[in-house]
């Protein structure tokens, strides 16, 4: 096995919502642990709102974890001082889910893309400009657009700006939160190819958050499936896609729409999506699980290694 680049252990995040009497605690991430190796792409999939973005932001400490530890290379990210963290940021970058909101509306694309170099004090002005142009070309944006402002772009173009910005510094780790969701398939293919090329060239690692399971399958080496703030199953993509163990993973894989097979058997999940402010007892998936047992309502399943996969489900005890 290659060495671990990012190691996340027992990560937790609690948000408070509302004020006064209406105040509530939302457990966005409840006990998440995973490892990303050098040169590896780790996919994170799961229901919307289950805490993927939060996990991603926690992993590079854009928001403070409520508890848990993060190790990046040798360094402890959770303990890092403000200044240390800033230099570490050169090595870990993020592509944001909301491309438009993550761009300063008052800056031209050129400015936005030279920012990373400026901040890390890299290269001369000329060199920077050159790099910006090649970055734009790489993600399929016309360099002629570099004097435009974010609002003058289409959704997909904005997303590519976000990608270009994250790639600018040649980081070791990129947290990519839905990086290709707004791209048409041909551009998506371009971007994915680019990501793979970079990975091969520089040994980049990705934490790849996506809903598109085909894309995840295509690009990731290992995949973690999240449900309600917890990882319910982790495994290499081949085995996970072939042989999903957790009932939620199974449901997920059966729902993929595809051009090829129009009428397919689907596991449609019934029951309520639970409330992260008040998660169900026992296994958090039990209210919607097609194969729910009595024990699931009471006891939280422990993670269990089955082959290459790690799964938290009472079915396998």
């Amino acid at each position, binding site marked *: 096995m290659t060495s671990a680049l990012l190691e996340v252990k027992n990560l937790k995040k609690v948000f408070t919502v509302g*004020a*006064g009497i209406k105040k509530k605690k939302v457990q966005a991430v409840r006990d998440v642990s995973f490892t990303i190796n050098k040169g590896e792409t780790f996919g994170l999939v799961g229901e919307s709102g289950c805490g993927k973005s939060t996990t991603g932001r926690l992993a590079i400490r854009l928001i403070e974890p409520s508890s848990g530890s993060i190790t990046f290379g040798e360094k402890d990210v959770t303990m890092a001082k403000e200044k240390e963290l800033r230099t570490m940021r050169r090595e870990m970058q993020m592509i944001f889910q909301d491309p*438009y909101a993550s761009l300063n509306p008052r800056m031209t694309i050129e400015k936005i893309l030279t920012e990373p170099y400026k901040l890390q004090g890299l290269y001369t002005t000329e060199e920077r400009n050159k790099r910006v142009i090649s970055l734009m070309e790489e993600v399929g944006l016309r360099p002629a657009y570099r004097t435009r402002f974010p*609002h003058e772009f289409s959704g997909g173009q904005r997303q590519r700006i976000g990608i270009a910005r994250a790639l600018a510094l040649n980081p070791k780790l990129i947290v990519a939160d839905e990086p290709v969701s707004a791209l048409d398939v041909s551009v998506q293919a371009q971007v994915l190819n680019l990501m793979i090329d970079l990975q091969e060239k520089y040994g980049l690692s990705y934490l790849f958050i996506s809903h598109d399971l085909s894309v995840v399958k295509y690009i990731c080496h290992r995949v973690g499936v999240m449900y309600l703030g917890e990882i319910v199953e982790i495994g290499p993509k081949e085995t996970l896609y072939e042989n999903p163990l957790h009932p939620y993973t199974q449901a997920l894989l059966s729902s993929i729409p595809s051009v090829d097979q129009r009428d397919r058997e689907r596991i449609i999940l019934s029951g309520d999506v639970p409330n992260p402010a008040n998660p169900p007892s026992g296994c958090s998936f039990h209210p919607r699980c097609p194969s729910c047992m009595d024990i699931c309502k009471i006891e939280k399943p422990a993670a269990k290694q089955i082959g290459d996969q790690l799964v938290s489900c009472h079915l396998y005890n």
Partner: protein
Amino acid sequence: MMSYIIKRFLSLLPTLFVPLLLIFFMLRLAPGDPASIMLGADATVEQVEQLREKMGLNEPLLIQLFAFLKQLVTLDLGDSIFLKKPVLTVILDHIETTIVLTIYALIIAIVIGLLSGIISAIYRNKSIDQIAMTGAMIGVSMPEFWFGLMLILVFAVNLQWFPVTGYVPLSEGFFECIRSLTLPAVSLGFVQAAFIARITRTSMLDVIHEDFVRTAEAKGLSNGVIVFKHILRNAFIPILTVIGITVAVLMGGAIAIETVFSLPGIGRMMISAVSRRDYPLIQGIVLFISVVFILINMIVDIIYTWVDPRIKYR
């Protein structure tokens, strides 16, 4: 939030300390003292010295300060040197005019300011915008007292719609009271309206092109709802701040306006207290105004979080 409010209340005392200390030393650094004023133009040096001695003005400053603070601890602001009444009583006697005037002027400022700011923002660079903004410019190019005098000439002397001067207390009828304060309130409020209008216009322009405005339009909402609800609320933080400040500015402006219109308010009292160097009274007024401002700013800060839920304090 609650803890924030409590924290703010706790910080009230140290906050008050700043203006209090400042005013205490400033007053004593300033030339002129109450003893010589009290004795009048024909007094001799010895007489003044005697009185200074008697009034304790010759003590070292720190001892005076200590005495002052000791008095404050017992919530006693002392007696006005000239009015020979407890400072608190004097302030309470004059407070009604200033409060009614400030609120009235504030309403005028907010209504005129918000409306013309909104209209200007919507019709940006159209002639109505330019007219409103030129009006605003005229507003800020005129000293309040000067504008007040013009209003008197036009509306009191020539048209005789309003009295020239004087204040009718609320107890003698709301309508009469409002009538007596209309000209002063307009002269105070108009100038501030200009500022509110400008800031409203500019902050509205900051959000008028946001996506969520497009969403609101896609819902088929009427212009009014879009402007007053969706845009204004998002543009409201700077406007709110300015409105908060306006209260402060209005109270400051009241000094001139209350003098011009002979209104029995805090501002006019302040002027005479300063010109007579009535130390306890000045200190009392400053303390009072400070408390008012601190409370207003606190309220503004709290409204912030209500206007924009993204704002967080610790």
